[in-house]
C-alpha cells in the first residue's frame, strides 16, 4: 500500500491562509490503513482547524468528507456538492489522490494534508516500512525476493558496497544490509548462482515519469495512432 504521514498542523493552517470554508477530504484506502488520512483523521483535522479559528475568533467552517478512494473518478464525483461549498480543500489522500481531486475540481485550490512517503507494508502495529520503488522492471526473481533498488540505500544491483557494518547498512545501523540479506536468502535456497550473474544497467526509460500502464484489453481504446 501507499504510506503517508500527516503534515504538521501549522503547515496545513498556514497553507490555507485566510480561507474560511474548508473541506477536509479523507481517503478510505491506503492512507486510512496507515492512520494518516482516513475518516477519523479527516474529522480530527477539521476539528483542529475549527478550534484554531475559534481561538482567533474567525468566521470559519471546516467539514470532513471521506470517500472510498481519491484515485478513482467515480468516488471523487461524490464530493461535487461539498467542494462547491468550499473555498479550499485539504486532501488527506496520497499524492496521486490529491492530484486527481485537484484535476477534477480545478476552480478550487486543493492543498495536501499529508506527505506521501512510499509503497510499503504494515510491519507491525504503527510501523510501516518501504518495499518498492515502482521502477517498472522487477528484479525480485534474481534477488531472492528482496529488492536491491529499494532496500539498498544506494540501489546497487551487483552486490554490497564496502560500507556494510556487521550485516547492517552503512547509512542506517538499524537497517539490514540489503545485499547481506539477499546473499543469505539465496544461499538458503541454494540459488547463489543468481548473484554471480552481473546485473545489467537499469532501464530508466521504462520508468520515465509520469508512467502510464494500459491493460492489454484496453490497448485499442487508449493507444495513440
Amino acid at each position: 500500500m501507499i504510506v503517508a504521514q500527516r503534515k504538521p498542523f501549522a503547515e496545513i493552517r498556514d497553507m490555507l491562509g485566510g480561507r474560511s470554508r474548508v473541506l477536509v477530504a479523507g481517503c478510505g484506502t491506503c492512507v486510512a490503513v496507515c492512520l494518516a488520512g482516513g475518516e477519523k483523521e479527516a474529522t480530527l483535522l477539521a476539528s483542529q482547524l475549527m478550534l484554531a479559528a475559534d481561538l482567533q475568533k474567525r468566521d470559519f467552517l471546516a467539514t470532513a468528507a471521506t470517500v472510498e478512494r481519491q484515485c478513482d473518478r467515480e468516488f471523487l464525483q461524490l464530493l461535487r456538492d461539498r467542494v462547491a461549498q468550499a473555498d479550499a480543500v485539504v486532501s488527506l489522500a496520497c499524492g496521486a489522490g490529491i492530484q486527481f481531486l485537484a484535476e477534477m475540481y480545478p476552480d478550487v485550490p486543493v492543498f495536501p494534508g499529508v506527505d506521501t512517503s512510499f509503497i510499503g507494508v504494515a510491519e507491525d502495529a504503527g510501523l510501516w516500512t518501504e518495499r518498492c520503488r515502482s521502477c517498472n522492471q522487477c528484479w525480485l526473481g534474481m534477488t531472492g525476493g528482496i529488492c536491491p533498488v529499494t532496500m539498498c540505500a544506494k540501489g546497487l544491483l551487483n552486490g554490497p558496497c564496502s560500507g556494510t557494518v556487521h550485516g547492517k547498512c552503512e547509512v542506517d545501523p538499524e537497517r539490514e544490509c540489503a545485499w547481506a540479506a539477499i546473499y543469505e536468502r539465496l544461499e538458503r535456497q541454494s540459488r547463489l548462482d543468481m548473484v554471480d550473474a552481473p546485473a545489467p544497467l537499469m532501464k530508466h526509460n521504462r520508468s520515465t515519469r509520469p508512467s502510464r500502464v494500459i491493460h492489454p484489453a484496453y490497448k485499442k481504446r487508449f493507444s495513440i495512432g
Partner: protein
Amino acid sequence: MADSICERVRSGSFEVVGRLDPPRNGNLSQLVALAASWKGKIGSVLVTDNASARLGGSALLTAERLGREGIEPILTVSCRDGNRIALGSTVLGAVAASLRTLLCVSGDHPAFGDHQDAKPVYDMDSVQLIAMVRNMEQGRDASGNELEPLPRFCLAAAACASADPLAPQLSKARKKVRAGVDIFVTLPVFRVDQLEPFLNGLGEISVKVIAGVLLPRYEEVVSYKDGSIPGTFIPHDLVEQWRAMDPGAFSSASADHVKRLVADLRSWGKVAGVCISAPGREDEILGIL
C-alpha cells in the same frame, strides 16, 4: 611516461600509492607541491572524487594537472555523483588528459558527507562502471552506441577486506574481476591479518591487491565506532590504546603504527603494494616511508 601502475605491479614491484583530496579552494598549487615532493618515494597519487561525499575540487582536472607535472595519477571515478552519461564523459575526459589508471567506485553515500540532502545518483554501480569502461575500449558506450575504441586503461576497484559478512563482498569482488578489473585497492586495514580471509577467499586470480592503510585523525579515533568511517574497521584494542593518549602522543604512535604496518606488508609478500590515506595528515606520509 614510464610503465603504468598495472605494469609495475604485474612485474612484481611493490607499489606505493599516496592519496590526495582535491582541495575546496580551487587552488592546486599546494597539492601539486606535496605530490612533487613525493617523487621517487611514491609511485602514484590516488586523486579522490569528492571523497566521503564531501565537496572537493574536480578529480579529473586535478589528475590531469598532476600528469602534466610528471606525477602518475590514479583518477577516482565515483558512481554517486553522475549518471552513465556523466561517467562516460569523464572516461573520455581521462583519455583526453592522458590518464591511464582509473579507480572505479560506487562512492560513499551522501548521508556521510557535507551535502546530506543531495540526490544520490548511483545510476550504475562499480561493477557496471568497470564493464562500461571495458566496453568503451571496444568502441561501445553504456547504451551500445558506437564510439572510437579507447586505449586500454589500468582499472582499479575498491574492496573491503574486513567486511562482515565477507561472502557477499567476495562475490562482488569476483564480479569486478569478471568485468575486467586489474587491481584491487582495499579499504584501510590496520593489521596484516585483516587481509588474510579476503585474500584466501579470492583464491587464485590474476588481479593484484594493494592494501589500503590509513593514518587517522585524532578526532576520528576519539569518535570511532564500527561504521563511523565507511568500510574502515579499526581493531578495538588499537582504538582503546590510541584513545588513552593525548593528541601529541597519538600522532607519533599512529604514525609509528602505520610505518610498521607498511613495512610488514612489504615483507609479507602477499600484496602488490600499499595505498596510504592520511586526510589532514598528508604531510606525514613521507615520514611513514
